[in-house]
């Protein structure tokens, strides 16, 4: 065949001696549209990557001074002077007159006390600037169980926040994952077409639901409802918060799981049914295991959502930083702490740095989560399932 074609074409060329009919491929042409499109896309892509990197950089940079315990006080007199003139919470006069043993609203008051008077014996004298002694003590208090950042003697027990965050994540996942996965399994395998067309968009709509509304619902309705059932004493606690966050995470887990299940080849379904398996046996023992990597990814994304969830945490968890494993006690999460305190904190203060440290921790945890997803799912699970 090819030979014939060649002969034909050469003949055509021979008889048709006008080369203008042929497409010229010898000259390389510059195409402006292509060039511009490529450069613009590249530029925009690089810009977005840069922005992300800068955010990373900013958060870590702001968190970094907390580890700076070796240097001398680095504040210049002008800075200190500036701080002296800063506005106070009105507690200053109180402190001035009554002495220093009392807890105040924090930083500025302390500074004034220290500046104007010689501190009384036995008081915690370190002020809330970014002095190095302060950082040292902040670091020392991080493993304690108290989170009292605004006090004469501030304690930054991040551990209780971390435990609180993990506790609430666990609760929400225990609640959300089975529900979402079963719902997805139903939608993908059992629901008829019409049902599917209703369920899927509805749940996906819920993914865009403002978390403040879910938080509000949890605060006003869910908390009372659950308390009436379980009769625990603290109305707002990690259980309520976990359920509320689970509600926020369900749509995400559902959507991705449903996609993963639908992506399982139909031939698996046929093969299983042809072996005399019932529909639910097929769904549970063939389709579900085959979709494991996708489901795993879905759960990790759900965890990511809960991890960073701030509004619901602020509204429905009680916000008390207790180091306790009891699900019916209040908790405070990392994200909620930043959300609640960042607006109130003195710029450049130890507390400020600690909040950024918390932000960095959130970054790091999310990063680890993604790394697990990447390596475990792509590496191990895929290998096991695809046999490569």
């Amino acid at each position: 065949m090819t030979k014939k074609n060649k002969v034909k074409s050469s003949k055509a060329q021979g008889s048709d001696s006008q080369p203008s009919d042929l497409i010229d491929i010898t000259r390389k042409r510059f195409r402006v549209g292509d060039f511009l499109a490529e450069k613009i896309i590249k530029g925009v892509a690089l810009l977005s990557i840069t922005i992300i990197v800068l955010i990373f950089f900013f958060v870590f940079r702001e968190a970094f001074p907390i580890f700076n315990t070796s240097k001398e006080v680095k504040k210049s007199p002008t800075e200190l002077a500036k701080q002296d003139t800063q506005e106070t919470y009105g507690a200053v006069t109180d402190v001035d007159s009554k002495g220093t043993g009392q807890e105040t609203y924090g930083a500025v008051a302390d500074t004034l006390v220290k500046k104007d008077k010689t501190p009384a014996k036995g008081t915690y004298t370190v002020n809330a600037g970014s002095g190095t002694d302060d950082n040292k003590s902040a670091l020392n208090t991080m493993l304690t169980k108290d989170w009292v950042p605004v006090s004469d003697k501030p304690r930054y027990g991040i551990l209780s926040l971390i435990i609180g965050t993990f506790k609430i994540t666990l609760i929400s996942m225990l609640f959300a994952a089975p529900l979402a996965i079963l719902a997805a399994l139903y939608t993908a395998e059992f629901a008829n077409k019409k049902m599917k067309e209703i369920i899927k968009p509805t749940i996906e709509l819920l993914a865009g639901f403002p978390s403040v509304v879910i938080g509000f619902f949890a605060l006003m309705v869910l908390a009372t409802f659950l308390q009436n059932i379980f009769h625990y004493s603290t109305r707002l606690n990690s259980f309520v918060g976990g359920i509320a966050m689970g509600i926020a995470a369900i749509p995400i887990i559902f959507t991705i799981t449903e996609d993963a299940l639908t992506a399982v080849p139909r031939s698996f379904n046929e093969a299983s049914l042809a072996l005399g398996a019932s529909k639910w046996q097929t769904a549970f023992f063939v389709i579900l295991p085959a979709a494991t990597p996708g489901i795993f990814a879905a759960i990790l994304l759900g965890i990511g959502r809960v991890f960073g969830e701030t509004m619901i945490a602020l509204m429905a968890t009680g916000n008390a930083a207790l180091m306790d494993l009891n699900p019916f006690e209040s908790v405070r999460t990392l994200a909620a702490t930043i959300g609640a305190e960042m607006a109130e904190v003195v710029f450049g203060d130890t507390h400020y740095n600690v909040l950024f440290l918390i932000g960095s921790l959130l970054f790091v945890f999310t990063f680890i989560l993604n790394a697990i997803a990447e390596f475990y799912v792509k590496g191990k699970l895929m290998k096991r399932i695809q046999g490569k």
Partner: protein
Amino acid sequence: MILDKIHTEKMFLYYSEKVALKDISIKIPEKRVTAFIGPSGCGKSTFLRSLNRMNDLIDGVKIEGKVMIDNINIYDKNIDVVNLRKKVGMVFQKSNPFAKSIYENIAYGPKINGINDKKQLEEIVETALKNAAIWDEVKDRLGDSALGLSGGQQQRLCIARTLAVNPEIVLMDEPASALDPLSTSKIEELIVQLKEHYTIVIVTHNMQQAARISDNTAFFYLGELIEYDKTKTIFTNPSKKQTEDYITGRFG
């Protein structure tokens, strides 16, 4: 005497409104290999799939007439489809092992039938793999994923998986069409061996294959059963013009 394992009477199949199978009446003998041949879209696969009601999975399929297996109409209202499919196993055109280990692929069928004894399962797996002539190739790596096997091995694994639930009838939908000649000949040998215990119905595009392995051959064209006879007769002395044209390669 050879019994008729399957027979259909005046069977019609519709996809929504379209007629896909017209007036099919056929008697398929027990423990023989019966081949269905015909050009693409002639309804032979559709017919095969209606023998274990795999067509139920497709929306809008309607069947009229009788499809009898062991003298029971499988489209009766009170037929248990799950058990029907245990009785009538199926091997598909594209090998479709589950994303599980080789062992788990075979053990899946018996397991869903309630066999949980480990020893018994191991025996079943070994027998099935041996019957499907793949045991020697996989016995050292039963724990590996089945998806790591070659195409021919995967197809034999699928046959083993079907055999593991001990069906009476095995339907094969072009089981060798995606395989190389060597794997194909292995599967053909296997089919000839299997007819000792099973009734086999095979759809094939490959007429030599039908001639080599089948006892009876049915020729389908445009949803109709044109001719059905002993394979030898069909290939040497067909009674219908269309059959002759097809097997001599004049169309199709």
